């Protein structure tokens, strides 16, 4: 539901990044979307298209890569892809863990044509 806000925030960052860089056209923006980021890829794409429709970014592609959630066992330090719950460390059976990847959405790169 908050995908529009996410895309507005992303576009503000993209604007800042390309500002003063002699960018003629932005071809694509690549995002890594964490498995536990609470964002739906389809809704991100929909919001992105709606927000860029009447802007210089019209036609720019949004490339979404899914980023798995990674948990680190607090007992032994092993890292595991976190697919479901409850967590149980495959190495030591520990049940306490810290998530080190997959909670957020990152702008990876901006593909553009320069002047």
């Amino acid at each position, binding site marked *: 539901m908050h995908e529009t806000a996410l895309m507005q*925030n992303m576009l503000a*960052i993209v604007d800042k990044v390309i500002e003063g860089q002699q960018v003629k056209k932005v071809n694509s923006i690549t995002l890594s979307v964490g498995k536990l980021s609470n964002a739906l890829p389809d809704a991100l794409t929909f919001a992105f298209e709606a927000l860029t429709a009447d802007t210089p970014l019209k036609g720019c592609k949004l490339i979404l890569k899914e980023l798995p959630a990674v948990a680190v066992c607090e007992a032994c330090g092993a890292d595991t892809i976190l697919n479901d719950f409850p967590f149980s460390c495959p190495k030591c059976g520990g049940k306490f863990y810290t998530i080190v990847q997959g909670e957020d*959405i990152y*702008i990876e790169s901006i593909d553009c044509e320069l002047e």
Partner: protein
Amino acid sequence: MAEIKVQKDVKSLNKEIAEKNRAEFKKHNIFVMNIMGSPGSGKTTLLENILPVLAKSYRTAVIEGDLATQNDAERIRKTGVEAFQINTNGGCHLNAKQIEAEYAKIDPDHTDLIIIENVGNLVCPIEWDLGEDLRVVLLSAPEGEDKPLKYPPAMLKTDAVVITKADIASFADVNIEQMKKNILSVNPKAVVLEAGKVNGVYSAESVIDYIKEKIKAKKAE
């Protein structure tokens, strides 16, 4: 063609303001708590019941977030506590900038505790850091015991989960013990508490104690 590497969190602009808020709260010794949960999970009712007790120990202000109406701020004001209403006009969550703007209306030198009631929603508010010290998610029993498993980020990105409306769990065929197990199966570190009516009388002792303990811990830092 050129590829510009960015590697930046999409919410980094919000995060920057949240950190600014956090530093400001710390500077003025203000403890800030963010209450989240589905629409109708009992957030305002919990506040109505804990504020009279908390306000005796702490100079308290409440920030209310809703899509529309002043209803919740008015309910809070009836307890004698100052309340500020944000209307998001369709926005499904509060962001750090909105909190920065409301905070400007609060006298920081005469405030110990700010409680934020977020927009009713079990998904979006969780993702937006406001600069708070403590996050509490409410889960009302009638929502169903499987909700922790269906909304893992809400269980993971919080300090505590408060189960409300246990008094009507049986009408909804909900098993509170299973609900607790499900919360802990997603987040074994979550503090699980209960608040709500017991024999017709609202009780939230454990929540009040928990908040007081957390305030004390921050002061001791």
